[in-house]
């Protein structure tokens, strides 16, 4: 729902189904919190005038003067359930996502790169980690901004360049040189990007994936250099 500065009329659109589900889920969660807090109040806890910094729920205080937030400490967090590093469910769903993504676009993207020379080359569908996928899933709830920029389409062929472990051996060197250079540049760009991402990576899973990406980038560069020689 876009909110204008107030000069124009506020265009209100009814919430979409996904938003309705979110609203419903939030309401149920709020009811659960209220019920839990009511039980604690009846047990003798004190309702404070403060709110929790993390989730905004009203804080309770027990007889030993210890503060207690019902939603943080008892209920599962709204957003943590999407983080694969913390939740097994999210990790499993991420693996499934990866498999799906590796299977479907791989056949369509290999002709793009290998073009003429290696049209018979089978595309090895090794499920390489796709950084944009795992970063997106891990940072889905926590990050306020949309997930880190999906690599622009020119970089897409570079990822598929990683897919085949054996680059196509081309007999014609001069015709292949610009293509190889392009490929090298693309791989280097990817390597640079992966390095910067690795420096900022928060979760274990992501770091592992980025390291493997860097490894494959290095392997690809080596192969490309062998090719060009």
């Amino acid at each position, binding site marked *: *729902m876009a*909110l204008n*500065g*107030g*000069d124009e*009329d*506020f265009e*209100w659109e009814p919430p979409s189904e996904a938003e309705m589900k979110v609203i419903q889920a939030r309401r149920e969660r*709020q*009811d659960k*919190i*209220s*019920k839990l*807090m*009511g*039980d604690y*109040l*009846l047990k*003798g*806890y*004190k*309702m*404070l*005038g*403060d*709110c929790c910094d993390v989730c*905004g*729920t*009203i804080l309770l*205080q027990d007889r030993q003067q210890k503060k207690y937030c019902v939603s943080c400490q008892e209920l599962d967090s709204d957003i943590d359930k999407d983080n694969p590093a913390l939740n097994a469910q999210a990790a499993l769903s991420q693996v499934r996502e990866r498999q799906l993504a590796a299977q479907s676009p791989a056949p369509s993207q290999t002709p793009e790169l290998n073009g003429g020379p290696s049209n018979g080359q089978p595309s090895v569908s090794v499920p390489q980690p796709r950084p944009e996928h795992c970063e997106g899933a891990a940072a889905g709830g926590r990050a306020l901004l949309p997930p880190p920029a999906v690599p622009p389409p020119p970089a897409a062929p570079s990822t598929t360049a990683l897919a085949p472990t054996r680059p196509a051996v081309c007999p014609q060197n001069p015709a292949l040189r610009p293509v190889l250079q392009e490929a090298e540049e693309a791989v280097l760009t990817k390597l640079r990007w992966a390095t910067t991402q690795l420096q900022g990576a928060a979760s274990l899973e992501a770091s592992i994936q980025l390291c493997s990406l860097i490894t494959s980038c290095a392997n690809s560069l080596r192969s490309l250099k062998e090719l060009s020689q």
Partner: protein
Amino acid sequence: MCSFFCPFMSHGSVVGVLEAVILRSFGPEGGQVLFTRDTGQAMLSRSGTHILRALHLEHPLARMVVECVWKHSTVTGDGSKTFILLLASLLRKIHTTASREPHVSHSYNSLEAAEAATARHLADKLLAFALKELDDLIAMEVAPHGRCVSWEDFTAEMHSPANHYVQKLLASFFHMRLGYVHCAFISELTCELLNHWKCIDNLPYFALQFLKDNFPAIHTPVSGFPITSSRLIEGQVIHRDFATPYPQTDHQPIKAVVFTGYLQPRLLNTGDVLEVGCGGTEERSIVDFSAWTERSLQCLIANLQSLGVSVLLSVVKQSAAVLALATQAEMCFVDCVSEDELSLFAQLSGATPISDCWRIEPEHIAELTFCRPILLGPHRYENMPFFSLTCKATHLHAKNYLGTIHTSHLQTLVADVFIIRVKVKPYSLIICGSGEGQTDQYACAFQDAIRMLFTTWEPIPATGTTAAKRTVQSDKRTSSYTHVLTDSSTCTSSNLNPLHKCVLQPGCIMPAGGTFEFLLHHALLKLSHSCSASNDTNIGVPVSRLLASALLSVPKQIYSHSPGQFLQTRTRHNAIFTQDMGLESVSCKYELLLAVLQCVTSLLRVDTILRTHTALHTQSLADTSWESTEDEAEN
């Protein structure tokens, strides 16, 4: 440093928490809350006010809500859990409506601000609607399904239908409050009490008001006995023992006086300066002074003896010399009597308390039938009934109560009161319970029952447009008012002057179990369909529809254990008195609705809550005083 948070969301969450607290005790199937203290005292209670006031709440909104509930229950005596339910449901509905259609005519900084402003606007409209139109709606659509019980009919005979209805009303009240086992016994006891006190005045609710105001002095809690030992005894019980040995006197009537001050001047107060021996040639000492005061006391006692006074009541603790002289003169002396009891004594006997003990007039002397000690449980009290009330005393009563009546009724009432000569035999209520907590609970339940009855039979003053009509046609209205009071049939608008709107009749009761809510829900929906949207074009949703949907939350909770019954009752709402869920008072429900709407308005007017942090040592002091006040509140 101050913290700011969006209060709109937290209104709903705070009230939602309170709702979760009382929900399990709500309704006829509701459970009781067991309170325990660190001292080991335990108590069971189902009273909403009691539960809410026992919670430790530091959140300002929560405290505000509990304060509203408590104030409401001191007026009507009932409905504190329903209050919270309605409040939560209304806030949810207002929030939903506001988020669906925020008020877009002004520019706001954020969506939350727009929603909050819409909510406030909705709440104000709801309150305005309720104050203006709700009583007429209830009188026309809801009250005809109930029955108007006239207070005069109540005490005509023990087995009249009016008696039956009042007893059933009380029985359902006590059933909800105290449980099923003793509700019949307690409601019979209350009816008996009302019967005895009814003849105090001509107009019906005076007796109820008198009982309501003087209840602390009229009842005596005695713990250690089963509730079935509770009974009425004749006369007023003064909750102090005799300070002097009680002499057995046979002659009647016994005369009594009440002193408010000290009979013997006190010598040794801090800060007093006593000048002895001034202006004379002889040297005077303090011994001479005290001898002089004793001589003057002897004169006073002799004066009282000559007047035939044998019972002395005092507010303050008198000195040993006074007691000794009183014993010598064979007078009963009771000191340290509480103010409420003395004021009740003064009202019943017509005797004014003496402030200057040297001027005792006949108006200061009360006449009693008997005065004897009574042993109630571990305490010995004094029991003294009264002989008669004079006309003058009745006039005094009228003066006390006229101030609380709507001013337009004043002319009629003063005329009636002057002529009456009433004989009243006061009765006191002894309430027994197994422990102190239980006894206190029973006493609170009795007091709340009387408040509920008072609210039921209190005529609702004119509001809004009807008030204007009343000042114009005061004669006609007065006659119709008295006509209404004596009308004991089911109320219909044809009985009243057709020129003014139908007003909610006093004494209207209907079956409990959500009937009132269903009927009002249907009436509000009918109103919203029939009236055009001309008043509410800004919002687009008539407030009556909002109120109608919020009202359904109460019967939904009552029938939460059996949804089938909810649907059945909803469709068969015009089946009167066939279900055995008891009776409830329409006036109490109306007052409850108004109180809830006022609470909603004041809650939604809160924009921000600023919390300031003070220095550490004062904070800890504030915390300890908080604890102590909360402990006192729990008492």
